[in-house]
């Protein structure tokens, strides 16, 4: 028991957060990045909990740019989760809930990673461009979108050029 407590003290507390659908699938595909961490996964539908049976799971309200009300609710839900979990590191694949997590993460002293969705091959997403102001590490999944001050390219959730 004591060993376990000591172990948890040295394991970084990580919040891995995204909206549903493709954002969530991309977050699952980078799970190996959270090895050795005390990770909580957060997304917008309880149905996704089965995907992370070995990690703790939290549901947050979804928000999207079509509806201001949904954005406010999502921001509030994400804010409450951050206060409760106090993560040291936040990693997100977007979209709106991830943006709120990266922005509020600043206030609680968390370090943050924004991984822009692979869907954005023609330019960083609008939430990604906003998140870049707050995120400590901003990544794109397309080499041609790399900029001097970010976003950076370190690889993608799958290697499309190897599949042709």
């Amino acid at each position: 028991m004591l060993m376990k407590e000591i172990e948890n003290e040295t394991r970084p507390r990580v919040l891995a957060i995204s909206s549903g659908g493709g954002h969530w699938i991309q977050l699952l595909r980078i799970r190996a990045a959270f090895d050795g961490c005390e990770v909580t996964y957060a997304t917008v539908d309880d149905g996704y909990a089965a995907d992370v049976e070995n990690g703790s799971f939290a549901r947050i309200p979804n928000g999207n740019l079509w509806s201001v009300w949904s954005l406010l609710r999502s921001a509030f839900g994400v804010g409450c989760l951050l206060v409760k979990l106090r993560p040291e590191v936040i990693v997100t694949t977007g979209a709106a809930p991830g943006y709120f997590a990266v922005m509020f993460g600043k206030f609680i002293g968390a370090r943050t990673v924004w991984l822009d969705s692979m869907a954005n091959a023609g330019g960083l997403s609008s939430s990604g461009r906003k998140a870049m102001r707050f995120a400590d590490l901003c990544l794109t999944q397309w080499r041609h979108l790399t900029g001097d001050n970010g976003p950076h390219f370190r690889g993608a959730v799958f290697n499309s050029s190897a599949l042709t």
Partner: protein
Amino acid sequence: MIFVTVGSDTPFDRLIKTIDRWAFENSRRDVFAQIGRNAWKPQFVAYSEMLGPHDFKRHVNAARVVVGHAGMGTILTALQLNTPLLVMPRRGAMGETRNNHQVDTARELECIKGVDVALDERSLIEKLQFIDDAKNSVSISSHADESLTSSIREFIHRHKQS
């Protein structure tokens, strides 16, 4: 079964109307569509507004071929489950997404084996005529590039150790 999906965000009536007309004209009873909330309702094909994550995966797995919007959820699920895929991207100018990113995605991913792209309804109808010949997509591993995960892992542990 041909599984048609528009994803969980907003309806994509242009896709569903085209599929519905094609299925009616060709007496295709083997089409099932997920159409989104507040969408145009198909006259001929069976449909559901939304599917939970588990049911969505089950349909993609059971399908002979998936016809969908060019969303990453649809594309990654089909590739992970090795199901052939035909996508028509949503267009920003038509209010189907906020920008034209699905057209960019479709163009970049078109080169992948087993992923076919129809940029408009006419092209979709043409490609649907050969839908029964669709070849299996390549299967992809369940993990991202090692270079990506190791960079993020390194970032997470960098300060903790110092």
